[in-house]
Each structure stands twice: as C-alpha cells, then as structure tokens.
C-alpha cells in the first residue's frame, strides 16, 4: 500500500528551481533512501513534504490525503514526523522534557507514559541522562534523542534528514541499527543521506537526486551494484 506519494513536485527558492518534477512513492513498511550530493534538493524535498516550504506545483499525498493543503502541525497529527537535519533538540530542556514535547499533541497521558518507557528501553543511554539538559549530550546522543522524540508522536511514517551527519563511524552504525529496528517495529521510513553506502544497505528502495532532479530509482541492492552509483557515491 502506498503510504506517501509525491507527484511532479516543483519547488522554487526565488528564481532557483530547487526541485524539478520530483515524484516518488513510499510503501507501507518500507525503508526508502534518498541519496545525492550537497545541494541536490534532498532536504528541500523533506521540508516540502512536511509543508514547511511551499511547493509551486505538484502533489504530496500521505495516506491519500493532500499534505500541501495542511499545516505542518496537522501533518504531524496525521502520523508523519520529521527528524530535522542537524538534530534540533531543545538544548536548554531536559532529555525527558524533550521526549515529552515529542508527544506534544497527544492527550492520552497513560499511553505517553508507556511510550516513554518503551523509548527508554530502546535507548538506555537516554534513560541514564533523562535529567540532563539536551544541549549537553554528545552529537550521537542528540541524534538518538531527536529520533526518539519523533517516535514519541507515534508516527506511522518517519522522515529522517541526514541522521549520520557529523557523527563518528561507530555511532553512525548504531544510528542505522536503530533505524532498522524502528522500521521492524512497524514505522515506514524515508531516509535522506549523504552516506549512500549505509543508507542503501538498510533500504528496500532508493532514489538518486542530482541538482533537484531524480536521476535514478531502483531497488536498493541494484543501486548498490550499479557501476555509475558506485563510482559517484560509494567511492568504489
């Protein structure tokens, strides 16, 4: 079943045509990776899916509902949450309050509590540090927190924008393990990454973006084996 469908999306920054006729689909239960160099339009695509950036033409359908007519906070309520690029945790707020803010729109307190327990089970590190201010966590922990916080809204679909950015290789592995685990527990994932190798390895399907255009789409293992891709993105 199609969870997210983007059709012929065109986005401009002033005169700059940032996304050209972008189309993609994400099916329920999948991990889909978007790879591409700096400035390819990956983050722009994420932000326009969440309707943070207005699109000129095109359609974004989440579970059949049009996202471009909805406000960002309504899209979150529908069940799609973004983990923004650069983590964006609330630095002067404790780890636990960050997580509770993730459940901001939910009113079912006992369920929120259960989810908090589940998150702490999944990320024991966050439990250890739950009283600490989020700004004092390491980069990897902040990424964990940002991801965990997004899970607190019980998303059906999670958009992850560059979760491995600026992190040590061993932490990156942990992050990708987490993403796979979240996916196995039933959350559909759209992943944007510069770390193409790992992103494609955990993904079911992949899209390649270049200067605002989709240049390739295929099953992830096929992309991994593709010579062009290997040369351009995988450094092999």
């Amino acid at each position, binding site marked *: 079943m199609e969870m997210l469908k983007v059709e012929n999306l065109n986005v401009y920054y002033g005169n700059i045509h940032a996304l050209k006729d972008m189309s993609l689909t994400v099916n329920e239960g999948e991990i889909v990776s978007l790879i591409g160099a700096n400035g390819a339009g990956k983050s722009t695509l994420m932000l326009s899916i*969440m309707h*943070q950036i207005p699109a000129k033409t095109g359609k974004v359908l989440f579970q059949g509902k049009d996202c471009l007519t909805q*406000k*960002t*906070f309504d899209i*979150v*309520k529908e069940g799609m*949450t*973004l*983990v*923004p690029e650069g983590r*964006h*945790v*609330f*630095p*002067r*707020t*404790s780890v*636990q*309050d960050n997580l*509770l*803010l*993730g459940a*901001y*729109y939910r009113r079912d*307190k006992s369920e*929120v*509590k259960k989810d*908090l*327990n589940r998150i*702490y*089970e999944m990320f024991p590190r966050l*439990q250890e540090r739950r*009283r600490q*201010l989020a*700004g*004092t966590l390491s980069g990897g922990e902040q990424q964990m927190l*940002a991801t965990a*916080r*997004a899970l607190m*809204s019980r998303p059906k679909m999670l958009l992850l924008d560059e979760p491995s950015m600026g992190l040590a290789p061993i932490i990156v592995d942990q992050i990708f393990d987490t993403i796979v685990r979240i996916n196995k527990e039933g959350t559909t994932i759209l992943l944007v990454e510069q770390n193409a190798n790992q992103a494609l390895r955990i993904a079911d399907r992949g899209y390649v973006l270049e200067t605002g255009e989709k240049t390739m789409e295929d099953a992830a293992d096929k992309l991994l084996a593709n010579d062009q891709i290997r040369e351009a993105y995988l450094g092999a």
Partner: protein
Amino acid sequence: MKKIHISLRKPQAGELKANRKVIAVCVVLAAMLFICFLDDFTPSGRVIPNYFKYVIVVSLIYSVASLGINFYSGYQGDTSLGHAVFFGTGAYVTAYLTTQFSGINFWASILIGMAFSAVLSLPVAWAGSRVKGSFMVVITYGYCEIFRYLAINSNTLGGTAGMAGIPSPKIFGVRITKIPWLPSNKDGFILILMAIVGFLALFTYRIVNSRVGYALAAVREDEIAAYAMGVNVKAYKRLAIITSAVITSVAGSFYAGFTNVADPSLFGATLSITIFTMLVIGGRRSISGAILGAFIVVICPELLRYVQDLIGLPFDPWYILYGLMLVIIMRFKPEGLLGTKES
C-alpha cells in the same frame, strides 16, 4: 524488563530553588502589607509617609506591566520595545471612558481597555508570527511611536496635555482613596494591586507549567524542532503577544486611575524601554524577577533623589547609575537578578 518509575510532572533541578523564591516573594509582600498597615497599630498616628506608599503603588503598577511583558519577551523570547502601546492604550481607554461617559466605571474601563489592547496587538502578533526576533525590536518600536503621535495630534485625546481629571476608582460606591477603615488614600490601591500581582504570578506559573508553557519553550528554543513536533508555532507566537498586551493594558488602566492623568508620554519609547529593562534586570522568565525588577527601577530613582538633595548634587544621578547598573548586571548576571541561568 526493568520497570522504571516515571512521573510526567517531576520536580526539576531548579524547582526547589524556585519554591524558595516564591516563599521569599510572599514574605516580602507580607512585610510590605505590614508596613502599610503599621499606622493602624501605632496610637500616635501616621508613621509611614504617604510618599513611601505612593512609591509602592507605582512599583506594583509596573509589576503588572513587567509580568505582562514577561509573556512575550520572557517566555516567547523576542524583544519588545513597544509595550508602552498597550500600557498607553489601557490608560487612555480608562481616561476617555471614565471622563466622557458617566455610566462607565473604572472596572469596566479596564476590561474594555484589555479588549482594545488585544485588538491593537493583532498587527504586532501578525508580524511577530512571520519575522525573526530581532526585527520585532524595530517593528514594536515603530508601532509604539505611531500611537504616541496619534495621541499628541488628537483633540479628543487631549493632545500633548493628555487627559486629566480621571476619577479614582470606586469599590461598592466608596472611593478607593477614601476607604474609611484604611489609614491613607493609597492603601486601597496597594491592596487591590497586590491581589492582582498575586493573581498574575499564579496565572503565569500555571500557564508556564502547562502544555502551553512547554509549547512556548519549544518555540523559543528551536522553531524548526517545534514545528516537527506538531506545535503550531505561529499560533503560540501570536498567543504570547496578545496575552502580554492584555496584561500590560491593565497596568495602564491602573496608572490612569491612580495618577488621574493620561498623557502621550505613556506611549513613549522611554516607557517601553523601562518596562523591558524591568524584566531584564529582574530576570526573563522569572515571575519573582519581573516583580523585583519593577520595584528596583521605580524605587532606585526615588532613593537617589533623596541622596542628591543630601549631598547637594547639581544633577540627577539616576540615568548615569541606571546605565551603569544595566552594564554591570549584563556583565555579571546576564540572566537577570532572579533569572535562571541558561547554559
């Protein structure tokens, strides 16, 4: 699985300290009340000069304004140099209604002033939900100046002279300045304003520790993350400005009712900056700080006037010391006297 005990509303590191602050404020307020009523207990008549009480009333009025701006410049985090708009609106609405219409009493005029301020805050709220914080300094400042010139050039509002002869408020048909069981004409104001300041402090505390408060904190710290969490950022920004305006307006109404005059300086930049510095000196996002800041900024110049007479200074040293005080506080305690430190 190890079960972890989690309470959704747990005391935070700073909270015990905050409780101590609340107690301290209560003690200070109680002490002030005692001083005000000291006259009642001394058989020989007045011991507390009326002038002292005047200063307390003005301090309390500015405390209301300072608590008002705290919603915007404190909890929402953007700087406003235009809160005199709402102070002035409250004052002028009270002035106009109580002098022109005999049917409208002071208390009704407060409510109407609040409504007016809410309406007048809409353009600021609209702008504020669209631009980044630093631009708001210019927008609020400019907005405030517009109203000062309107007041100066309007005949109905008395032009540069403003409106005088505003009657003092009445409670149950008794003038607040002439309540028989109170020793001086300021005591009624002190009691009512203390109740209002107390109510506002409680109101602020409850809001800040609710969903709304958490959402405001999210907006303040990281707008992008707040959006991603499903917080309606623009709506909360607007809410903070409007609430702030409405509370500040109450201070303006009381100012008019107390001094019996409303003049265009109530829309002035000086007043805007004063309200803002009260909050900054006391501590942004601190309820007790906002009140303390108002008292400091009102009481210090009065004390200095006395010192000036005593040592025979040819000029008023207040503005020099005011600047110096701000520099020193910003250098050594940038979060304000009672504010909590931000890492």
